[in-house]
């Protein structure tokens, strides 16, 4: 069993990696457009962490990350990211436990699922608020997911290394 201080240290490292990814989004991804849309990395991050850490800690991390996103970036309603990221984290941990063992392939799958889930929730909220344009919103959600998914090759090794190093050292 890991000592408490070591567990705290691991989650501090995960948080720093997430901060780095947030800076990556703000400084680089927000400046580029792929297929007419801006890649949106955030939904992928809690999903990947939950895939590696599974069970309980991953989803709790995702809930906190969602809350931070709700406080910092515009969302359809306050609390949107908290709910969306918690849901995708629970889904990811279930996929990693029951379907595929944590790794690259599983990472791509949970990333795709989390992007799709966030997109579907956005469409649902958009339709509820009378925005219309179902087809257009679905198209943007699809393209956004496709444009973001390749960045899994950057996200997965970073979180994978943290997971492995912490597991190997103890």
């Amino acid at each position, binding site marked *: 069993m890991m000592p408490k201080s070591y567990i705290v240290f691991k989650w501090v490292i995960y948080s720093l990696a997430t901060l780095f990814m947030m*800076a990556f989004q703000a*400084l680089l991804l927000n400046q580029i457009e792929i297929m007419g849309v801006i890649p949106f990395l955030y939904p992928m991050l809690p999903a990947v962490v939950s895939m590696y850490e599974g069970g309980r800690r991953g989803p709790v991390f995702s*809930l906190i990350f969602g809350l931070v996103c709700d*406080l910092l970036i*515009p969302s359809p*309603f306050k609390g949107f990211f*908290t*709910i969306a990221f*918690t849901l995708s984290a629970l889904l990811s941990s279930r996929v990693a436990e029951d379907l595929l063992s944590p790794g690259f392939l599983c990472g791509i799958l949970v990333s795709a699922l989390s992007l799709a889930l966030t997109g579907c929730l956005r469409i649902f909220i958009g339709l509820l608020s009378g925005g*219309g344009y179902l087809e257009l919103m679905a198209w943007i959600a699809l393209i956004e997911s496709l444009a973001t998914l390749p960045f899994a090759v950057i996200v997965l090794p970073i979180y994978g290394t943290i997971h492995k190093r912490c597991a190997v050292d103890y």
Partner: protein
Amino acid sequence: MKQTDKFAIMLLSIAAAIAVLLSIMTYLSTNSSILPDIAGVIATPFRSVSSTITNTIDGCLAYMSDFDALKEENERLKLQIAEMEEEVRQAKADSDENARLRDLAELREQRRDLHLESARVLEQDASNWSSMLTISKGTSQDIETGDCVITEAGYLVGVVTEAGLNWATVRTILDSSSSIGAMIFRSGASALAQGDFALMSEGRLTLSYLGTTPDLVSGDLVMTSGLGGYYPSQVVIGSVEEVRASDDGLDQVAVVRPSADIESLTQVFVVTSFDIVE
């Protein structure tokens, strides 16, 4: 029920409770609730650094790639200035005539006095779903939710939707949930300038409630109506680009090109208060 299912339900309940709590806090607070305010204050220096870095990089790239384009633009602007000077002379004559006509008709002249607060754009919301800005001033500079935001040329940018201590979020006129009372300058007809999700990425908005036979032509200037006193009147929104049937076919809508170049804003002015003197 399995232990993991119980945990999942508990966690989702917490997430839902947080969402409800945040929504209630946002609904009850005038400008920004305490948590987003604290988060915004902490994030402001990072946003500022991020904005500086991206602006510097953009500036360098633009300098390298746009030199020829800038030369061309310079020539074009010189011509434009000459044309505008001619227009100013004409406008002066028109203004004098207008003043005389007002006197004759004993119309009361409206005088609008805008109190402005300048702010830097810290962050453009780079999302495919909304059009928002984060600016560098907040409640400590008397900025409040509902304040209008304009450019240095007086073109409407949007409305403050959330204001923290030293930051504020602005919903631009392109955002699909933006809606502002408008007026056609030429005809004086009232309409509603609304953001449209389908046009947002093209940098356009719509003008609706025009009726079935609107008196509109391409190029017509669209301004704020100021009806209700929520926003100042006669702030330029943009110009009509085309008029077409609405989706239901019962009405006409106009596509409006905003006068403000919203995507490349670096500085804006918040109308903290305005007087209508009649």
